[in-house]
Structure formats: structure tokens, C-alpha cells
């Protein structure tokens, strides 16, 4: 005989009031008929019958307060059932799924309370070996990014570029120069100024199997689109149990340019790299820009690709091979050394590189690491280095609190504490919105002298 149980209106509800019966013994009820009204301090609910039959017995009087969830409140005699065949349950079934359970009970409720399994370890590939005597071509980061997109657009017809001024204008920073001419308006698409909308539209296109490259004129504008990047793109694979992918790249200049004020100068490295589901890449050199953007476009995952406006015009040597793709998640040791480790990425590498040159000239054997990828973060390379040098300085343009340096410091403390000969020092942007005045902006950003001072401090050379 179907029992009607006191329902829970929310997972945290334990008891409630049976305020009113809308049926009486002997009534015939069918599915969906309202049997009773119950209420708590914040909600009311009608109890509907799920079964058809005759009301046999009302077990709880109306007006009763404190009725425990899952207590039988009525018996329904189903069609074809006889009253005798119905044993009344003495006890209510335990609400085994309710999250509010005492600790002892929770422990019994395995496997939901089982020990947390260890996270799988990500192991990145090494950089590919270049052919002997490969020609190295000098090009700007801008050209490298442009070549990477052009090559991938040629390779895969599902790849397309979408963003503000990417087509006819040739890119606000000319990263998409000539792509419209080669690939046409079907694949190089100017959007209205509508970041939230076109980011979401691109994610939808990725769900349906395309591989969008979404250019944000700057990552500062992408704050309007961050919901789609995180809630729709990053979480989709997990929420769908692995079914629906979002293979796509969100890219554009990140961080401070020069004299553009607080709203155009934020570094989002720490924000995006905190999100599971995203891959976050922030290259410094032209070669890394090319090899990693190609890898990002081929990735089956949503990738946040953080460029830097000031670095667009800087040049570097890029190997001239048919298909130069670099591994995601692998840091690059820019200089080997044994006295101190400097870890940086993107624009921070410019300060770090210049500081390293001066420090080496002064006799400090610096090991300089360019992270290149911020998620998955190549801790191993950093930890191995710190085990050797015992000293660490991190350099980034972003704010200090919860920054990349803060994350690396924590990991080093957890995994290489006994190897440290000095506290880690973070060189970061100052904890202020970016000022406009030239002198203040300079003060707000990290600089070479700060990096040198930090290295002197951790090596006790000052």
C-alpha cells in the first residue's frame, strides 16, 4: 500500500508543519491531486499524490508541527489493493541522501564519504627536437601569432576567428592582418561590440563542433564575457560527464599596455589560472607565441591565451619548420644556473631577463624559468630548480594577493620547504588600480631594480 511521506522542501529541511489536509479518509484520488499543505518558516508546498487510489488513513493530524521528513503521513489504497494486504511501516526510511547527517552516520554512508582520491598528475611533453641546422627566422611576436593562426586556419576548416575589428580593420593590434584576405568573411568575422554575446555564441559554436578563436580587443573587456568563459566553456566537459567539449581559444592582449589607465591595464593571469577546466597560456618569446598558439588551437579544451601588447613588437628567433607546435604545460628554462631561481612569464620575463643579465655580470649564477603555461602549471621544473638553488624570486605584473607568485610560493613551501635557504620573494605589480600619470604608472609596475634587489635579498648579498 503506497505510503505518503512527509516531504522535504529543501535538502536542509528536517521537519515541518502539516498545516492542512485537503482530502479525507475514503476520498478517491488520482495522480497529481493535492493531498495536503505543508509549510516551514520559509516555504509552503502542496503534497501531491503520485498514486491513484482511495485514502485509507491519515496518520498525522492537520496542524501538527515538527513532523519529521519522511514520516508516513497517509496511506493510499491503490486500485485493486485490499486493506488487509497493507502492513503499516513502523519506521520511516532514513533519508540516506540528505547532506545534513551527523558525522558518525556520514562515515557509514560510503562511498559518498570515501577518502578523496589523489588527483592525477599532469605530465607535459618536452619541447620537440629541432632538426639539425634548422633555419631560425627573426620575427615579431605579432607575426608569430599571425602565422600560427594562418597555419591552423589552413589546416582545419572548422577553425574560425571572431572578434571586434579582426577582419576589415585587420585587427586592433594587427594580429589578424591579412587573414580576411586569405580566408574570407565566412571564417574571419567582425563582431559588434558585444563581448558577452559573442563569447557565448562562440562557446555554442564549439559545442556544435567548430573550433573558434575568439579575439578580445583586450582581456579587460572580456570581464563582460567571463561568465561564458567559466560557466559555459570551462565547466561544460565536467558537467556533461565528458560528453560535450568546448575546443576553442580565447585570446588577446592582457595586462598593462602604457598609460591606458586602470580599466585597461589589469592582468588576469591569476583569475583564469585558478579555474579547473581551462588551459591558460601566457607566452613571452616569439617562438613560444607561435608554437603555443598552434597547440592551443588544436587543443580539445577551452584555452585562455594571454598576450601582451608591449611584447607584440618585440622580436625573437622562430625555427623555420613545417609545423612548429610546442607542448602545453611545460616551462622553459631560459638560463641554467645554480645560485638562485627566478620564475616569471609573459611581460614579467622582460624584467627578469634584464635583471638576470646584470646579475650574471655581477657574478650571480641565475636560473631563469619562463612558465609559458599557467594552467596546468609546471611545478616540477620550478621545484627541481629550487632544490638546486635553494632560493626563489617570482616576477609578474599582476597584483600580489592570490597571484601567480603566491601560488608558486605555496607550492615550493609544500614541496621543497627543506631546500629553501631564504624566504621566497615575490616581485609583483603594486596593490593599486593602475594609475595614469607616467611617474605613478612606472611605480605601480615591477622593474628590473626590484628584481635585482629581491635576488640580492634571497642570496643575502645586499
Amino acid at each position, binding site marked *: 500500500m503506497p505510503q505518503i*511521506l512527509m*516531504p*522535504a*522542501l529543501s*535538502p536542509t*529541511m528536517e521537519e515541518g508543519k502539516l498545516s492542512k489536509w485537503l482530502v479525507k479518509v475514503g476520498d478517491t484520488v488520482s*495522480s*497529481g491531486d493535492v493531498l495536503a499543505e505543508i509549510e*516551514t518558516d*520559509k*516555504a*509552503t*508546498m502542496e503534497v*501531491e499524490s*503520485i498514486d491513484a487510489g482511495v485514502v485509507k488513513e491519515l496518520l498525522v493530524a492537520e496542524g501538527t508541527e515538527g513532523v519529521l521528513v*519522511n514520516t508516513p503521513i497517509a496511506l493510499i489504497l491503490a486500485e485493486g489493493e485490499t486493506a488487509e494486504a497493507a502492513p503499516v511501516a513502523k519506521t520511516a*526510511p532514513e*533519508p*540516506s*541522501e*540528505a*547532506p545534513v547527517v551527523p558525522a558518525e552516520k556520514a562515515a557509514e554512508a560510503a*562511498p*559518498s564519504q570515501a*577518502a578523496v*582520491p589523489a588527483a*592525477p598528475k599532469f605530465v607535459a611533453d618536452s619541447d620537440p627536437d629541432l632538426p639539425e641546422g634548422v633555419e631560425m627566422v627573426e620575427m615579431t611576436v605579432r607575426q608569430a601569432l599571425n602565422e600560427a593562426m594562418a597555419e591552423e586556419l589552413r589546416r582545419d576548416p572548422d577553425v*574560425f576567428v571572431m572578434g571586434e575589428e579582426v577582419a576589415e580593420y585587420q585587427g586592433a593590434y594587427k594580429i589578424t592582418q591579412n587573414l580576411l584576405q586569405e580566408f574570407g568573411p565566412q571564417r574571419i568575422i567582425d563582431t*559588434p561590440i*558585444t563581448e*558577452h*554575446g*559573442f*563569447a*557565448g*555564441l562562440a*562557446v*555554442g*559554436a*564549439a*559545442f*556544435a*563542433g*567548430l573550433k573558434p578563436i575568439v579575439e578580445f580587443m583586450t582581456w579587460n573587456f572580456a570581464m563582460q564575457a567571463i*561568465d561564458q568563459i567559466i*560557466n*559555459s566553456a570551462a565547466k561544460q*566537459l*565536467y*558537467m*556533461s*560527464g*565528458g*560528453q*560535450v567539449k568546448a575546443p576553442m581559444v580565447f585570446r588577446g592582449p592582457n595586462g598593462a599596455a602604457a598609460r591606458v589607465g586602470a580599466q585597461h591595464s589589469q592582468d588576469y593571469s591569476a583569475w583564469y589560472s585558478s579555474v*579547473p*577546466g581551462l*588551459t591558460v597560456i601566457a607566452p613571452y618569446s616569439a617562438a613560444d607565441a607561435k608554437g603555443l598558439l598552434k597547440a592551443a588551437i588544436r*587543443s580539445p*579544451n577551452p584555452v585562455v591565451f594571454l598576450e601582451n601588447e608591449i611584447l607584440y613588437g618585440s622580436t625573437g628567433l622562430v625555427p623555420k619548420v613545417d609545423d612548429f607546435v610546442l607542448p602545453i604545460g611545460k616551462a622553459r628554462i631560459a638560463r641554467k644556473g645554480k645560485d638562485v631561481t627566478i620564475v616569471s612569464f609573459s611581460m614579467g620575463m622582460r624584467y627578469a631577463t634584464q635583471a638576470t643579465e646584470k646579475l650574471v655580470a655581477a657574478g650571480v649564477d641565475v636560473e631563469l624559468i619562463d612558465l609559458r603555461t599557467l594552467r596546468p602549471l609546471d611545478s616540477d621544473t620550478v621545484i627541481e630548480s629550487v632544490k638546486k638553488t635553494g632560493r626563489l624570486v617570482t616576477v609578474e605584473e599582476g597584483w600580489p594577493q592570490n597571484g601567480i607568485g603566491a601560488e608558486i610560493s605555496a607550492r615550493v613551501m609544500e614541496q621543497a620547504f627543506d631546500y629553501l635557504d631564504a624566504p621566497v620573494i615575490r616581485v609583483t605589480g603594486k596593490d593599486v588600480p593602475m594609475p595614469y600619470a607616467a611617474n605613478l604608472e612606472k611605480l605601480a609596475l615591477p622593474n628590473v631594480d626590484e628584481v635585482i634587489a629581491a635576488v640580492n635579498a634571497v642570496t643575502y648579498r645586499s
Partner: protein
Amino acid sequence: MARKAVATQAKTQSNIPQFTKEQDLEAYREMLLIRRFEEKAGQMYGMGLIGGFCHLYIGQEAVVTGITMASEKGKDAQITGYRDHGHMLVMGLDPKGVMAELTGRSGGLSKGKGGSMHMFSNEHRFYGGNGIVGAQVSLGAGLAFAAKYKGDGSVSLAYFGDGAANQGQVYETFNMAKLWNLPVVFVIENNKYAMGTAIERASATTDFSMRGASFNIPGEQVDGMDVRMVHDAAKRAIEHARSGKGPFILEMLTYRYRGHSMSDPAKYRTKEEVTQYRQERDPIEQVKARLLESGFQTEEDLKTIENGIRAIVTEAADFATNDPEPAAAELWTDITISA
């Protein structure tokens, strides 16, 4: 109150499109499956088997049923917000998998990792199940963008509520959808209340079919309680989109009998209003009456259908109750794909 007048007008049109007996029977089956499934879900929620949020579709069944009947199943894409169980059932997703997702079990459509608001099927072209109000509108236009890019002739059906209709990205999307003439039908399920806020208290204008006017997107207000009206309007809207004329807006005047989610104060509308919709406008009762009046089906025939649906729902509930929770190792899977 202008909205009500239009709804009545829609209902009293002399040329109400007629269903064949087979169509009525199909609509009856689909809507009854949703109704019984949702009642069961509500009951299981009450028993603590389902956690968190649980937004039931009871009362709105004719909307997704009529539209899906007018679409090409397996070809046209659909996407909606958090009130998504009905969409999945009509699109042919396994009721066992849906219910087991509600209970957070390994056999759920998302392995128990998504929950009530996050279920998907590439095979059936259902893209969720989206918990951020309004996000599915731009995502849905993206599905249409992909259809146009590939030239596969499919249409995207993007459902959202009267509440979501006030989100900014909806209008960003309307603009792009018309600018590029994407094959998308925007279905606004106007059930009169965004959670507990009546449309008149939240919207400067309450004729949502006009919301595309400044983008030159045609719109139509439809009696969303009559599956024939829904189907007829959807046929035209989908044909419009498929033929390359761009987006179309269908405002479905509908009603949700249950609370917004399970814990609902029920103070923002009168009991009489709910009762009136249930008694006078119920989408399932309308079809049932037609089937009986026409003599095509007897009470006995309908009882057989009902029993069949009951068996499906019971099987789903049993599966969802007894299926194990996901293995602990699932915590770390499906975060990213290894290249």
C-alpha cells in the same frame, strides 16, 4: 493585463489548427510522460533522494512537446535553462538516465556530475540544461552559427523564460542573430513569474514577442497551453529559420503549477489563479478531452497509455534509487581532455 487579453484572443481564434488523431495521441503520450516523471521527481525530492534545486515543468508541457513535434528530431538542436527535464524526455533522452542524474548516480546522463540543471546529449542534439539565466540564448545562437557555417540545414531552438528575457546578453544575441541571419528560433516560455516576480513587476513591456522588434526579428505570441497552437506556430517559425530568413521569436504564454524550485513560498500568486489554470487550461486535459470526444480513444485506451507511462517512470525511479553513486575516482575525470 494586456497579456491576458492577447492570450484569450489567441485561444478564441476561429481557425485553431487541428491535430490528426495520431498527433493528438503523440502529444498526449509525451506530455503525460513529462507530467508523471515530474510528479515522481517531486516526490523523490521530498524523500531526500534528489538534492539541491529541482525545477519542475508541470503545467508547461505543451510548449516543448509542440515545438519538438514541429522540429526534426536528431537534427535540430535544442538548448534551455534550468527547467530542463521535459525537454530531455521529449527529445528522446533516456528517462532512467535523467532520473539517475537527479539522484546523482553513476548511471545519470552526466554520470551524476551535472545534476538537475546540467544534462546534455550530442546524439540527440540537446545542449542543456544551463544554470546561468540567459546564457543559453547566446549559446543557442552559437549552435545556429555552427549550423550555418557547416551548411547542415539544422535549426537551433533556444528556450528561455520571461525572467531571462531581461538579461543583457539576450539583446546582444538578438542583434547578432539577425545581423547574420542565423537559423535560430528563440522560444520565450512566459510562465508569468520569474521566480516570484510577476512579469508586470519586472518588465517595462510585457509583450515579449515584440522584444526583437528593434532588430527586425519577427515575433508571435502563442497560447502555450494548447499544443496544437504551439506546434502550428513552431512549424512556421522553424521553416522561417531553416529557409535562411533568420531568427524568429515565439512567446509561449504558459503557466507553471509548481513552485519555482522545490522550496517556494507560494505567496506571490493566488491559489485561485493556479487552480484556474489547472482546471480550465491544462494542456494534457485538453488533448485527453479531444481524444475521448472524437471517440478515437476510450477511457480504457487512455488508461493503458497511462499505465505504460507509469511503468516507464517507476522503472526510472527504481533505477535512480538503486544505481550506485559515481566512483570516487570520477571526481578527477572529465576536467580536461588529454590531447
